[in-house]
């Protein structure tokens, strides 16, 4: 076995393995994801920008990749780490192998490492910086680069993944019931699909858009997307959202949820190793029902920091972290997890309908731009 690659963590722990996909050096915060299926969606989720993702399920690549299960225009994560890369895809929709896909996108893959040992290490020591190197690299050298790389806390990665210009996504039927403006902090396609399916026309703006640019869209509501990095490093987005509070209904997902939390006056903090997977139980405090959710975040909203008038609507049953917020006075809601799934269970997709109800109520009150 040619051990031509390695993963090194900032504390020096090293795992040697075999490269697949592209060769090269990739730096990032090392996190693990516990979903069994959905590697293509994970790869194309812009929220993973700046993160080396290790998958805990050992066989990766089994069903190859296809043209449909794509969550954005590319792959933003720097490297993928697996226990056992499978180069032989078997699925009626497969168009290429995972290795070919990574190569095409210039992403480094590392296989044949003890991913469970890595996961346990991260669980105990917390998510940390690291690098995957496939090719001729010196460990000491690479470690130096890791230590010189920026930590995740304080990092604005939204600028790396957001669109250059606005783009309109219309529902399949001609008449859109609502128009929503979306701030693209790294938006996943399935959010757009979910909204379109419900008759929502979405105008997606770059996260750097100005309030005037957004106002010009005359939307019924504002959506703040998921995305990578530290929400506290995005005052420019938070300010935009603050400006819209109370003017239109607002819905935020993941990073969008954290941004809304900040806009409402709350604080965010970094979790030890975050939530990345497709099996997190979340309790809806209103209905008492538990939904199994798709999650991908390293930061969270501090419940104790929230001002009066902001309710926690959903909590994570594993660690009691905030999973959903609602500010009724502002008709604003947000979810830390991913109701659009992709990958993951569909239990939470009703939340899009909740947002639509919010739009409906507000529209009746002729409340808006």
């Amino acid at each position, binding site marked *: 076995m040619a051990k031509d690659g390695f993963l090194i963590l900032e504390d020096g722990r090293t*795992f040697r393995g075999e490269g697949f996909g592209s060769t090269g050096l990739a730096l990032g915060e090392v996190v693990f994801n516990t979903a069994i299926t959905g590697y*293509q969606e994970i790869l194309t989720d812009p929220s993973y920008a700046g993160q080396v993702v290790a998958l805990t399920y*050992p066989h990766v690549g089994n069903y190859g990749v296809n043209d449909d299960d794509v969550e954005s225009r590319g792959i933003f994560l720097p490297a993928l780490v697996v226990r056992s890369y499978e180069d032989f895809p078997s699925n009626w929709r497969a168009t290429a192998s995972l290795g070919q896909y990574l190569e095409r996108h210039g992403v480094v893959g590392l296989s044949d490492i003890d991913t469970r040992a890595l996961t346990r290490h991260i669980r105990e020591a917390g998510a940390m910086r690291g690098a995957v190197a496939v090719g001729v690299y010196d460990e000491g050298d690479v470690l130096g680069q890791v230590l010189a790389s920026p930590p995740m806390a304080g990092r604005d990665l939204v600028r790396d993944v957001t669109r250059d210009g606005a783009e309109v996504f219309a529902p399949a039927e001609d008449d859109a019931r609502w128009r929503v403006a979306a701030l693209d902090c790294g938006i996943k396609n399935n959010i757009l699909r979910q909204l379109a399916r419900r008759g929502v026309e979405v105008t997606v703006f770059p996260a750097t858009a100005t309030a005037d640019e957004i106002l010009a869209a005359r939307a019924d509501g504002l959506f703040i997307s998921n995305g990578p990095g530290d929400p506290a490093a995005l005052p420019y987005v938070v300010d935009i959202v603050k400006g819209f509070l109370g003017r239109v209904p607002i819905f935020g997902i993941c990073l969008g949820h954290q941004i809304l939390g900040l806009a409402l006056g709350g604080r965010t903090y970094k979790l030890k190793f975050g939530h990345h997977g*497709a099996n997190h139980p979340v309790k809806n405090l209103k209905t008492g029902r538990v939904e199994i959710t798709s999650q991908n975040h390293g930061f969270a909203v501090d419940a104790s920091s929230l001002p009066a008038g902001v309710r926690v609507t959903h909590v994570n049953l*594993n660690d009691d972290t905030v999973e959903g917020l609602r500010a009724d006075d502002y008709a604003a809601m947000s979810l830390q997890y991913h109701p659009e799934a992709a990958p993951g269970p*569909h239990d939470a997709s009703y939340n899009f309908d909740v947002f639509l109800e919010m739009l409906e109520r507000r529209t009746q009150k002729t409340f808006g731009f």
Partner: protein
Amino acid sequence: MPRRDDIETILVIGAGPIVIGQGCEFDYSGTQACKALAAEGYRVVLINSNPATIMTDPEYAAATYVEPLTLSAVAKVIEREKPDALLPTVGGQTALNLAVQLAEAGILRENGVRLIGANLAAIRTAEDRRLFRAAMVAEGLPVPRAAAVGTLEAARDVAAEMGLPLVIRPSFTLGGEGGAVAFNVPEFERAVARGLDASPMREVLIEESVLGWKEFELEVMRDLADNVVVICSIENVDAMGVHTGDSITVAPVQTLTDVEYQRLRDMAQAVIRRVGVETGGSNVQFAVNPEDGRVVVIEINPRVSRSSALASKATGFPIAKIAAQLAVGLTLDEIPNDITRETPACFEPTVDYVVVKVPRWNFEKFPGADDVLTTSMKSVGETMALGRTFVEALQKALRSLEAGYAGLDANASSGLDAELLRERLRVPNPDRIFYVKLALQRGWSEADVAQTTGIDPWFVHQINKLVELEGELGAFDLTSAPDELLRKAKRAGFGDGQLAGLWGVAEEDVRRRREGAGVVPVFKAVDTCAAEFEAYTPYYYSTYEEENEAPTGEGRAVVILGAGPNRIGQGIEFDYCCVHAAVALREVGYDVVMVNNNPETVSTDYDTSTRLYFEPLNLEEVLAVVAGERPEGVVVQFGGQTPLKLAGPLEAAGVSILGTSPDAIDLAEDRERFGRLLGELGIPRPEYGTAFSFEEAREAAARVGFPVLVRPSYVLGGRAMAICYDERALARYAAEAAEVSPEKPVLVDRFLEDAFEADVDAVADGEEVYIGAIMQHIEEAGIHSGDSAAVIPPYLIKDVHLETIRDYTRRLALALGVRGLINIQFAIKDDVVYVLEANPRASRTVPFVSKATGVPLAKVAARIIAGKTLAEQGLAGEGRAPGHFVKECVFPFDRFPGVDTVLGPEMKSTGEVMAGASTFGLAFGKAQLASGYHVPLRGTAFVSVNDNDKETVVPIARDLAALGFRLVATRGTAARLRREGLNVELVFKVNEGRPNVADKVVSGEIDLVINTPMGRESFYDDATVRRAARARGILVVTTLSAARATVEAVRVLRQNVATVQSLQEVHRGVPNK
């Protein structure tokens, strides 16, 4: 939602005897359920006829009824115990069907018993294929095209419209019994006829064939708050058309994208909601067309199942336990996850390993049985293995089978011609996975193999990786193989034995070379969460990775080796003993380390032992566990033959064996040594010889005298054992059944015809011997003890002989140096007591004896191993049974149409039932009812016996006549009975003309068959009659001992005095009225 307070007493119905399609997974689930309900503070009442279950141990319920699982017995329990609720979802199809019957008979309503877990409507919707289809269609869920019919004519119309192939499934049967795939018209008609017979409602569903589609299963749980979670996804390696119980299966799903998997998940949720399973676990099966991804819903099991047991073991999530908690109103978010402690049970487990299950078949025991795998399950057990890759888990699972494989070996005969090979790939059979390998080795393309077998190309590719790796390994030898290659092979699951075979060296050499190179396994935990949270429940599997998670050498540990996969001859009884040993040793302060690989069992429940290793029971894996755990020793006497055969090699490797020493085991197993010992002790045994050639066998037979009992040395469950009455039969045996050679000697024993046989289970501590019980076989000598009904106390053995048996037992146990359990078999002929064999280990009858006497022998033995003498345990002398207890066996003949149902020295039963009563006859009658036979209270008895029996049958026939039975007999028997003045109708034998006795059986004119075997000449006659009778549930008695007991049973059952009594009452000495 808190637990329900409106109920206090809950009735749990078990699954009854182990049969094909309903194995010990229901002991696992039932035990979990009883424990969980008791822990919630409910009073649990249990009924289950299977004594070899942990759940029927008296401590698991307030009242434990080891009684027949019949409507009338359950009704009696309900009347006595007045339960508030009935939990029907943890006892398999048996419990579900009984619940439906109880509801339909109005018994539940009359007694105010509510169904919990699944209501009647949900059970009906799930079980009745028409209702199920209608529900699916109404929900907008896709189903195969199908039609339900009640007659052959209607079936023909359907076939004409839909075209063959078609799937035929009878409604309301176990494990798809009676189901089949038909490719042509005769097959179709046969399958429909058989299906109609098998269905209690005479209905079959004829379905569009989704043959060759991919098969998936999701294990789903729902609570009263309508939370629905998927615990595990399972992909079948064998395509649709093979029953999932006969398929190699993999968890989690390997070849679906997230989009496709989530679609199944959405559908599974919709199915459980639509069917209306309010709480608990269900198994939903899907077929997916590999060409275009089209999905159809196949079925739902609204209860825990074999798959849910597998899913529990595969993920660490205890489905049955939680299902029981949900049934009493708790919600998933209120129940903590035992393994992580900090997170709730309301989540979906995720795994970071691959789980492979491989079925274990026993076709070799049923000559003439069709080994083609269909929608009707035929396997008798299974193994599960975990690995970090599919190939690693697959090879470990195959190694766990104990079918002679060290992994995916070159098992298939290499001389097979291409046509035959293609046939063996095309038609599903037990060895197909090996033929896949053979084809790939011969250079077939993966695509061709996938196309021919219907196995997904991904799995074929994985197997091809093994073929390529094996090729790579073959280019080296033990010394030249690079360390990295060795490591790669171990990571791919190659066993040391497999590598030894490849390189032509001893397994030990491979182990030494490997360990020298530092290629040693580590243990990873099964934690439900892929290491995201810390796990507290130590459940491990070995793999070749960097980091080890298992503790090393902490505490005072003992290792208990389990029994591996269920098979005929080694079933649930041994798991029962292992569990008892674990409990007893934990009680005295040991850390108990369990090693086993059978996912159906209680022993592999993560809280049975202190630590569980889910591993093959091979020297390699056991030594690895021992190296890590550094136990005080290994206990080998509870898991049957599997651990016993490891005793010597383990000891040779420096591992201390606790309890009876390997030398004592050898002393009992080696015929020559054992013979000498008996000689020294002055204990008679039948004359015997050992033959290394046919000539020697002939000489031995001549010396000991015909008839002789012949068998290969070291066999399990009487494999290839036969009774030969003359030299011709001996020659036939040597030619057909067993090779006789210097490598494979055959044992030749004098067969004690017409002897009484008895079994003794005893425990010894080196100084004293405690006799559990003496059991008398009800079947005659020559029938394997595992197939013979037995009774405690003995009913026809003279006191003087019982005294001799006690004396021999004591002296033999002490002379052998037994520390723990011993089972001795005796025969009594012409007032001489002979010892047939002694096994210094747990026996099949330990649970039966323990339940009859109230003394848990396996626990007693475990305590002896831990150093507590019998005296310290307050035991001396012999157990006392408060009443009469009968053990009866159940057979899988209904699964193997065309196979003769006659009993002999080769064991064929899959399980047993137990019944107790104040008289022997009543106990025997109840045992017959419990094992599924109808004991006729009146009607016509057919009597046909061999010449040896003609004298003895006379009083039996006279009794039957006195009881009002009409007698029908074949020529010889009729003549003899008429001579006694009995009124007997003469009937033709099958070959004498028509209408013959078989016609009479088929047309329902016979209610009882007494037919002792009459040698090869009338073999086909006898077989035809017995087969026809058994197919109709008519009691068939093949020995005169059983006939005598039957007569007594009829006599007492006619007085309608059958009562039910709990084990707790029995052992408190409450009289059974």
